C-alpha cells in the first residue's frame, strides 16, 4: 500500500491538497502569491522612503534608524523574497516542466520543501519588522555595523539561510529535471530559451549562494559567538565580508536577469510569430557567456572601498566584457521582432517596456563599470536609478509579463482587459517620473541612502517629481493586482491556445493542466521547435 497520501482530484478548492501539495504547478502558484505579498510590503517601504524624501527635512520620520529599517526590508525583500522566488520560483516551477513535456520535477517532495523554506523565510522577515530590534543593516549587512548594531542581525542571517537553502535545492531539482526529464526526442537545441536561461540561473545559484551563506554565517559568529573574522583589531578583515557577499550578490543579478530575459523571449517570439533570431549564438554565446563571465566581476562593487589598482583594472575589463554576451542576447531579442506583425497584448506591452529598460539600464551601466567615472558616481542617486532600471524594474516587469502571458494557462481565463492596460501606462509613466530625476541629480551630487538632504536644497523639486512617480507606479500595480484577482474569478474564458504559440505548454497541456500535466505523454520529432512559426 502506498504510504504517501494520494487524494482524488475533485472540482473545487481543497485546502489540505494545497498545503501538502508536491505538484510543481501548485507550488508555482504558491511562489507567485508569496512573492507578490513580499513585493507589496517591500513596495510600501519604498513609498515610505519616497514620502520621506519628498521634501527637505523630516516629514514623518522619528529617527534615522527608521529609514535604515525600511531600506533593509525594501532591498532584502525585493531581491530575495520577490524577484528570485518570482522568477526562479514561480515562473520556473510552473512552466519549465510543461515546456519540456515532463509530468513534474525530478524531486517533487524536495520542491515542496523549497517552497516551505521560502514561506518560513518570509514569516521570519515579517517577524523582524515587528520586533523592537528590527535589523537595520540594509540588504547587504556590511560589518562592522552589522556586528555592532543593536538590531537583530541573526534574523537577517537566518532569512538568507532559509532562502538560500531553498534556492540550492531548487537548483538541484531543476538541473536534474532538465537533464533527465525532457520529452523523448527533445534535443538541447530544441529547448525554449526560458528553459536555458532558467538552467543558467540555477547553475549560478548552485555555485554562488553557498559563498553568501558562508559570509552571513561568519557574520552571525562574529556578532553572537565572538569570533573575529571581520575584526581587523584581532587579525580579521572587513573587506573579506564585502568580497564574499558580492561574490554571490553580483551573480545574483544574473540569476534574476536571465530568467527575465527568458520570459521576454517566450512572449516576443509568440507575439511576433517569429523563430528566435540567432538561437544558438544567443544560447551558447550570450547566456553561456554571462554564466562564464558573471562570476569574475564582483570587485566592481568594491571600487571605492580600497582595492589595488591592478585588481580594479582587471575587474573593469571583465565588467565591460560582459556587455558582449548581454549584447548578443539583446540582439536576438530585437532580431526576433524583425519584419513581424506584432500582436500587442498586455504581456507584450510590458516586454516592449523591458526593451527600453534594458537599453537605458545597460547604457548607464557602462560609465559605472569604468573605475575613473565610478569614483564620482558611486554612492549617488545615479547608481540607484541605474540598478532600479536594469535589475529592479526590468525583472519586475518580467514577472508581470509572465503572469499576463500565462494567465490563461494558469486559470483558464484571460487577464487582458482595458484596466490592465491602464495599469501598465500608469506604472510605466510612474517609473520614468521616479527614476529620471534621480539619473539627473546623481551626477550633480545627490547622494543615495540619505533620508534628509538639507545640504542640497536645489534637488527638492526633483524629489517631489520622483515621489509623485512612485505613487503613480503604486496605483498602476494596485490596479493590476486587483485585475488579476478579478479575472481569476470571473474573467472571460480563454481559448485553449489564445496566443497561437507552438510551445508544448500551450499545444499539449489543458488550461489549467491537471495532475501529471499531459493527458498523454509527449514525444517530439527531430524537426520540432517551440518557435516553429515559419512552416
Amino acid at each position, binding site marked *: 500500500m502506498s504510504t504517501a497520501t494520494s487524494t482524488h482530484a475533485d472540482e473545487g478548492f481543497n485546502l489540505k*491538497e494545497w498545503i501538502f501539495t508536491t505538484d510543481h504547478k501548485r507550488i508555482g502558484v504558491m511562489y507567485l502569491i508569496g512573492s507578490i505579498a513580499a513585493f507589496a510590503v517591500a513596495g510600501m517601504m519604498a513609498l515610505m522612503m519616497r514620502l520621506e524624501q519628498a521634501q527637505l527635512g523630516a516629514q514623518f520620520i522619528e529617527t534615522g534608524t527608521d529609514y535604515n529599517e525600511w531600506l533593509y526590508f525594501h532591498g532584502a525583500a525585493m531581491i530575495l523574497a520577490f524577484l528570485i522566488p518570482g522568477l526562479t520560483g514561480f515562473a520556473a516551477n510552473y512552466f519549465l516542466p510543461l515546456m519540456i513535456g515532463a509530468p513534474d520535477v525530478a*524531486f517533487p517532495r524536495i520542491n515542496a520543501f523549497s517552497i516551505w523554506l521560502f514561506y518560513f523565510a518570509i514569516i521570519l522577515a515579517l517577524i523582524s519588522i515587528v520586533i523592537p530590534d528590527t535589523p537595520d543593516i540594509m540588504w547587504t549587512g556590511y560589518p562592522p555595523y552589522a556586528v555592532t548594531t543593536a538590531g537583530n542581525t541573526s534574523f537577517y542571517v537566518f532569512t538568507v539561510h532559509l532562502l538560500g537553502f531553498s534556492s540550492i535545492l531548487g537548483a538541484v531539482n531543476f538541473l536534474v529535471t532538465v537533464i533527465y526529464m525532457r520529452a523523448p526526442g527533445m534535443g538541447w537545441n530544441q529547448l525554449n530559451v526560458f528553459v536555458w536561461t532558467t538552467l543558467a540561473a540555477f547553475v549560478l545559484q548552485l555555485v554562488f549562494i553557498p559563498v553568501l*551563506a558562508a559570509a552571513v554565517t561568519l557574520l552571525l559568529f562574529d556578532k553572537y559567538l565572538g569570533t*573575529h573574522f571581520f575584526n581587523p583589531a584581532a587579525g580579521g578583515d572587513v573587506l573579506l565580508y564585502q568580497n564574499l557577499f558580492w561574490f554571490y550578490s553580483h551573480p545574483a543579478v544574473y540569476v534574476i536577469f536571465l530568467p527575465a530575459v527568458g520570459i521576454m523571449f517566450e512572449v516576443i517570439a509568440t507575439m511576433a510569430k517569429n523563430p528566435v533570431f540567432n538561437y544558438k549564438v544567443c544560447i551558447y554565446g550570450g547566456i553561456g557567456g554571462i554564466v562564464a563571465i558573471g562570476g569574475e566581476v564582483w570587485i566592481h562593487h568594491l571600487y571605492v572601498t580600497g582595492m589595488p589598482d591592478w585588481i580594479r583594472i582587471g575587474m573593469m575589463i571583465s565588467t565591460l566584457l560582459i556587455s558582449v554576451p548581454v549584447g548578443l542576447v539583446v540582439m536576438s531579442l530585437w532580431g526576433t521582432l524583425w519584419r513581424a506583425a506584432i500582436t500587442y497584448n498586455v504581456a507584450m506591452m510590458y516586454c516592449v517596456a523591458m526593451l527600453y529598460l534594458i537599453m537605458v539600464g545597460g547604457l548607464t551601466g557602462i560609465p559605472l563599470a569604468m573605475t575613473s567615472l565610478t569614483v564620482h558616481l558611486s554612492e549617488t542617486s545615479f547608481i540607484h536609478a541605474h540598478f532600479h532600471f536594469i535589475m529592479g524594474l526590468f525583472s519586475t516587469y518580467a514577472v508581470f509579463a509572465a503572469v499576463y502571458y500565462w494567465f490563461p494557462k494558469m486559470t483558464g481565463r484571460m487577464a487582458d482587459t482595458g484596466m490592465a492596460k491602464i495599469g501598465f501606462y500608469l506604472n510605466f509613466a510612474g517609473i520614468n517620473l521616479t527614476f529620471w530625476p534621480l539619473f539627473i541629480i546623481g551626477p550633480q551630487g545627490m547622494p543615495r541612502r540619505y533620508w534628509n538632504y538639507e545640504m542640497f536644497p536645489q534637488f527638492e523639486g526633483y524629489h517631489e517629481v520622483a515621489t509623485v512617480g512612485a505613487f503613480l507606479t503604486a496605483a498602476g500595480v494596485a490596479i493590476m493586482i486587483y485585475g488579476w484577482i478579478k479575472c481569476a474569478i470571473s474573467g472571460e474564458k480563454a481559448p485553449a491556445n489564445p496566443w497561437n504559440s507552438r510551445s508544448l505548454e500551450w499545444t499539449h497541456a489543458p488550461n489549467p493542466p491537471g495532475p501529471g500535466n499531459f493527458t498523454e505523454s509527449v514525444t517530439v520529432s527531430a524537426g520540432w521547435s517551440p518557435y516553429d512559426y515559419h512552416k
Partner: protein
Amino acid sequence: MSVESEVAHTGGTQHEHHWETSWAPLVLVAGIFMLVPIGFSGYFVYENQMMTIIGAGLGVPLILAGVAKWVQEGMSHENLVVGVSIVGLPIFIVSEIFIFLGLFASYWMMRLSAGNNWPPEGTPDINTTIPLIMTVILVSSSLTMHVAEVKLDNKDNGGFNKWLIISILLGTLFLGCTVYEYQHLIHEGFVPETNAYSSAFYSITGFHASHVFIGLATFVAVLIPALKGKTNHAFVVCASVYWHFVDVVWFFVVSQIYFW
C-alpha cells in the same frame, strides 16, 4: 497543424488522476524554523530560556517526524525517473564544496595577511596527534561503508547491517574525538573569541563536524528500515557518497588548519 503531426502522442501511461501530497516537507521545514532561527535567537540573541526551550522542544520532534515520514515515503515510492537521486546528490555536493571554499578563503585571507605573526598570540600548542587519529578513523569508516555497499550488492543484508553499524560507530568515535579535543582546548583557554586563528579553527572544524553529524543521521535513517529488511539502493548510494565527500573534506581541514 504542422506541430500536431510532428509531436506524436504515445500511450497514456504517465497520466495521473490525483494531486500528490505529502506532509513531510512542511513539517520538516517547520522543525528547522523552530530549532535554528527561533532556538538560536532565543539562546544567543535574547538570552531567553523560555524561547530557547520552546524553539528546540518543538523543533527537534518536528524534524524527526518529518525525516521519518520522508524516509518512509521514499522507501515505498518510485521516483518519476528511476535513479535520479544518484545524480541529484553530486549536484548538491557542488554547492557544499563552495560553502567550504568560502570558509577556507576567509581563513586563507586572514592567514596570509598575518604574515609571520601566526599563530596569533593566545594560541596554545595544538596537539597534532588527535587529528591524525581522527583521519585514520574517518578513512576507515569510508572503507567500512564501501564494504557495506558491496555486501548489499551481493544481497547480503545481514552483512550490510553489520558493516553499516561499524561505520556508524566509527563516525561516532570521530565526533567523540572532536568533543574531547574541544574540551581540552577550551580548558586551556582557547575559545572562539581568543583570536583570528581560534575563530577559523572552531568555525571550520565545527562546520565539518556538523557534516559528519548529518552523515551519521543519514546512516541511522538507512539503518532503521534496513534492520527490518528494507533497503533502497539509491538512498544507500547517496548516504555513502555523502560520507566519502565528508571524508575528503577532512583532508583539507587537517592539512590547512592543523599542519599549515
